[in-house]
């Protein structure tokens, strides 16, 4: 199956935009920058839809194989190991192409209104394009090192965008935190790559997967044979790679950067920290899924538990947060947790692969409704000029469109049929049911909690207090519901949030490329729906009207509440480790040693010479007779030595 080469333009167009806007934007193109960016992204979005069409629809034959459209050797290390840059299409990458370009396009359009009048407008779009390029390059990687490279690039573009308001210290801190935490995770990723490549003698995805999965390959035996600290090299490699993924996808305990990352402009949060970048970890595991599933189930177990814990943990915290973007951030983390453990419970091939498909499905749907939620929140913030729930309420009248779309999104994420979230989540749950009951129950509970906090959010924004209280005193400096360019994306995305669920996803994406018929029994669906409804009802009781029930409950479960409110003090632990231990116990001593000991020795030698010379200056007494005496001693000393030598 050969692909039209113009698909290569999908990543290249954003790159070109980035260069154009990055170099000339600030001076010359500032007014039209948004238009340029949006246009080029529209183009690549259409192209990726074409790609999807070509790959899925025009596809003939039973199995979806991975197609390498183009590839070059970028940096050769040895004969067989080299970094290649290329463009590979397979079901998940095509799916990701669509997701990334569509959501990014929405965000581009939305930003036209949202960022209007910002003095670094062009730079903003340049960064957006850079991110889009990196993300696209990531998903079409042919080579695990190519993924690592674009991995770093998305990291840095997210850093740039989080720190976009660079004169806000909190934004700077957040951007640093995000970059460093993910960098730490990437360290694991890198070492994982080193281990895998060392044993597989390749970095190329298809070869790598083949060599590490086919049971008779010597590579696999060597990878399993050599062990360190009781685990096989393969386990180490896969776990470390997953560590990288966990970092990007904000899995517990590497999640701490995600909430702070909300310092960035809201459209950015929608794009990077909800829809695309944060799911890169899931994508990475999916990319290497055969190796996990076939050769190393132990590592997959870890993936599963990490995902489940994160899902639950984040959901609990989300109930207590008061900053709407942080609530959404934690819900993102929790949803990604779903995708992770869905992968974790999955097996390779056939029906066992259900989890895989489900995870990808959820990734797909989640992208739409979560982006929708963020953009809605953005609209709210744009109007209220605040992220705090307490400043909001009763906005359903003043901003109807936002209200409706937001509600749709909430229903979708809560898993109420027929919205998209319901289907994907339902698949995940049934996959969990088939493999691991404990996970299943965790998931159910989490589903309930999710519904609860989403509707807590919904009610506090759009109901609760009476509208007129603030609508008037905001009017003068609020832009109403925002421009048309801000509404259109909301509408489009809400369509996605409704319709995406009806796609026969199993026909397209599955662990082994074969078609997979997604089972759907109502029996499985009842329990989650009930859980969701309970959550919604509780939220309705507590938050529909302004009252103090919620505070009472909070007081009742005080310990849990404060714990959750302070995000279970994970941040504090990190601060302790970095500031106290790394800086004070390693950094300071290192600097001190360098100044005083290493350097001191060098200077000490010098001063020693001076000291010696002052010590012996009295020999040169200036008295000719002393000189003669030394002469004498010298003569006879040498004479004795000489005669002794000769004898």
């Amino acid at each position, binding site marked *: 199956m050969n692909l039209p080469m113009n698909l290569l333009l999908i990543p290249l167009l954003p790159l070109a935009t980035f260069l154009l806007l990055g170099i000339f934007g600030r001076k010359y193109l500032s007014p039209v920058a948004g238009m340029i960016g949006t246009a080029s992204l529209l183009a690549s979005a259409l192209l990726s839809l074409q790609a999807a069409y070509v790959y899925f629809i025009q596809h003939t034959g039973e199995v979806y194989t991975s197609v390498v459209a183009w590839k070059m050797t970028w940096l050769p290390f040895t004969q067989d190991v080299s970094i290649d840059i290329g463009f590979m299409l397979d079901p998940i990458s095509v799916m990701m192409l669509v997701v990334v370009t569509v959501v990014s396009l929405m965000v581009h359009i939305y930003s036209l209104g949202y960022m209007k009048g910002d003095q670094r407008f062009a730079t903003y779009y340049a960064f957006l394009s850079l991110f889009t390029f990196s993300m696209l390059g990531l998903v079409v990687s042919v080579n695990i090192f190519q993924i690592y490279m674009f991995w770093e*690039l998305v990291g840095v573009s997210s850093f740039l965008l989080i*720190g976009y308001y660079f004169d806000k210290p909190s934004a700077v801190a957040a951007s640093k935190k995000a970059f460093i935490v993910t960098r730490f995770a990437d360290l694991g990723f890198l070492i994982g790559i*080193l281990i895998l490549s060392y044993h597989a003698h390749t970095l190329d995805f298809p070869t790598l997967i083949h060599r590490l999965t086919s049971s008779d390959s010597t590579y696999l035996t060597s990878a399993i044979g050599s062990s360190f600290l009781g685990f096989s090299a393969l386990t180490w490699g896969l776990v470390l790679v997953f560590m990288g993924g966990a970092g990007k996808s904000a899995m517990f305990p590497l999640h701490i950067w995600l909430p702070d990352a909300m310092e960035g402009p809201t459209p950015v949060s929608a794009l990077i920290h909800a829809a695309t970048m944060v799911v890169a970890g899931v994508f990475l595991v999916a990319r290497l899924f055969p190796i996990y599933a076939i050769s190393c189930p132990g590592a997959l177990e870890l993936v599963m538990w990490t995902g489940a814990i994160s899902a639950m943990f984040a959901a609990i915290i989300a109930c207590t947060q008061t900053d709407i973007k942080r609530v959404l951030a934690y819900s993102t983390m929790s949803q990604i947790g779903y995708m992770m453990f869905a992968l974790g419970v999955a097996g390779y091939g056939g029906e066992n692969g259900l989890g895989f498909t489900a995870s990808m499905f959820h990734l797909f749907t989640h992208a739409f409704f979560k982006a929708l939620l963020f953009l809605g929140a953005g609209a709210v913030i744009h109007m209220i000029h605040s992220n705090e729930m307490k400043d909001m309420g009763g906005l359903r009248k003043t901003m109807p469109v936002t209200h409706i779309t937001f509600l749709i999104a909430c229903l979708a994420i809560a898993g109420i049929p027929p919205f998209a979230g319901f289907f994907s989540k339902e698949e995940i749950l049934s996959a969990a049911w088939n493999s691991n009951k404990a996970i299943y129950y965790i998931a159910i509970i989490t589903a309930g909690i999710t519904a609860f906090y989403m509707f807590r959010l919904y009610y506090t924004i759009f109901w609760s207090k009476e509208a007129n209280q603030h609508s008037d005193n905001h009017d003068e400096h609020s832009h109403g519901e925002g421009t048309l360019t801000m509404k259109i994306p909301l509408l489009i995305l809400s369509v996605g949030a409704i319709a995406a669920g009806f796609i026969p996803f199993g026909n397209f994406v599955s662990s082994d490329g074969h078609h997979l018929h997604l089972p759907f029994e109502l029996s499985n669906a009842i329990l989650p729906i009930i859980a969701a409804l309970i959550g919604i009802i509780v939220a309705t009781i507590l938050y529909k009207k302004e009252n103090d029930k919620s505070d009472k409950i909070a007081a009742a479960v005080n310990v849990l509440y404060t714990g959750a409110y302070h995000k279970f003090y994970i941040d504090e632990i990190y601060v302790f480790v970095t500031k106290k231990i790394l800086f004070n116990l390693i*950094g300071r001593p290192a600097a001190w040693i360098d100044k005083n000991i290493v350097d001191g020795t060098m200077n000490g030698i010098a001063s020693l010479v001076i000291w010696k010379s002052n010590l012996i200056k009295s020999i040169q007494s200036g008295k000719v007779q002393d000189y003669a005496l030394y002469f004498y001693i010298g003569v006879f000393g040498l004479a004795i030595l000489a005669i002794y030598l000769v004898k």
Partner: protein
Amino acid sequence: MNLHILVLIPVLTALTTLFFKELKQVRMIAFLGSALQLLLSFALLAVFYAERAAGNVAPMLFYSSIPWFPSLGIAYTTGIDGIAMAMILLSAFVVLAGVLVSWKMEKLSREFFFLLMLLSAGAYGFFISLDLFVMFFFLEIAVIPKFLLIGVWGSGRKEYSAMKLALMLMGGSALVFLGLMGIYFNSADIHGLHTFNIIELSVRHIPYSAQMLFFPFAFIGFGIFGALFPFHTWVPDGHSSAPTAASMFLAGISMKLGGYGCLRVATYLMPEAAHTYSPIIILLAAIAIIYGAFATMMQTDLKYINAYSSVSHCGFVLLGIGMMNETAITGAVMQMISHGLMTALFFAAIGMIYERTHTRMLSQLGGLLKVMPFISSIFVIAGLCSLGLPGFSGFVAEMTVFMGSWQHVETGFRIATILSCASIVVTAVYILRAAGKSIMGPIVNEHHLHLNDATWNEKLAAIVLLFGIVTIGIAPFWLSNLIGPGVHGLMANIGRTILS
């Protein structure tokens, strides 16, 4: 193509500057000279490729040997392989940029540019020479100009730093000299004739015992130039006291002399001993990497930050050399090139900032991105390159070193490699700390509000260096194709172990 011109042009430029007084004339001469040099290096590169393409597989191209002190077997022997070629390119880039950033050197401008050119001449000579004595000659030529540049035009504790640098480098060259003596007098052929010629020496097997005795001298001696732990202490003081151009030269070129020497002389001519000593080398390199990185985290002066990070980055060079396999050594050479360009760019940016704000203290800087976007972007880009971001040269070099280092299966080496990899996190920490404090954040000093951005010459300098960094970062294959064969040639010797 005749290589002597590479030395001749800087020398002539230097001499020409002496005939002029005005800054305008002098700097123009220096600029023309270094620009011509850059063009020549590109021409040389072209010819080099042409020769290789024509199937000339000689280890050293453009080989020529002019007898100098025949009775001592000293000849002015020159020739280049891919590694030297890359080094020459690096020097050409850095020199041009250095001249451009010191455009406004009012104080004793003639002497300044004279010394600058002399320094560059030393570097070029070092890279093209294939005779140990001549190499040593050029190595030492480079010392004294540094002393004067720092001591006269420097800032801060300049006298102390200048003296320290000169003495430590002198010590280094003393050790190198002993190493050379050892090599020379153990290189007798069947007629009992000694030689300084590297090509000759590479085929004469120096006895293992002699190697064990003299390898440390040669390696540590060159290592001092290349900031080998614990002999790196000249680096922070020297770099931070030096004027901008001198810092660029120091970090960009001079420290590379050390790494190059460690590779081309110590390791290449005494491979067996190198194999025996490699654990120690690796240990020191790993310490330098990690410890340098952590020491950087604590610095508050931008130049100190970059200087210590140079210690950390040059650790990668020694790490790669110590691993002694083809990939790692290729990585080491790449790291030399990359670090040279990157740190030069960094120092250039710091110099531009210092020129305007008259401070390098993180506490007194902030929000510069608002007032001087170009310089700040340069600063950030240099930082990103230094923390190994794909698309810039740093990533390529470091990844190659890691890849090569991982080939070593012994646990100790693996641990050293992992530690070195871990430094990329620490690097991120201190780079972002520096950038966050000085470039981003609110403006701390309202005087900074009306500072101007880079002038054309500064922009040109930055662009010259950026060009190098990005071309390597985007398309590393040309660099690896250039270096690869050279390293492969070296491996013929380095691959030799005691058994064979």
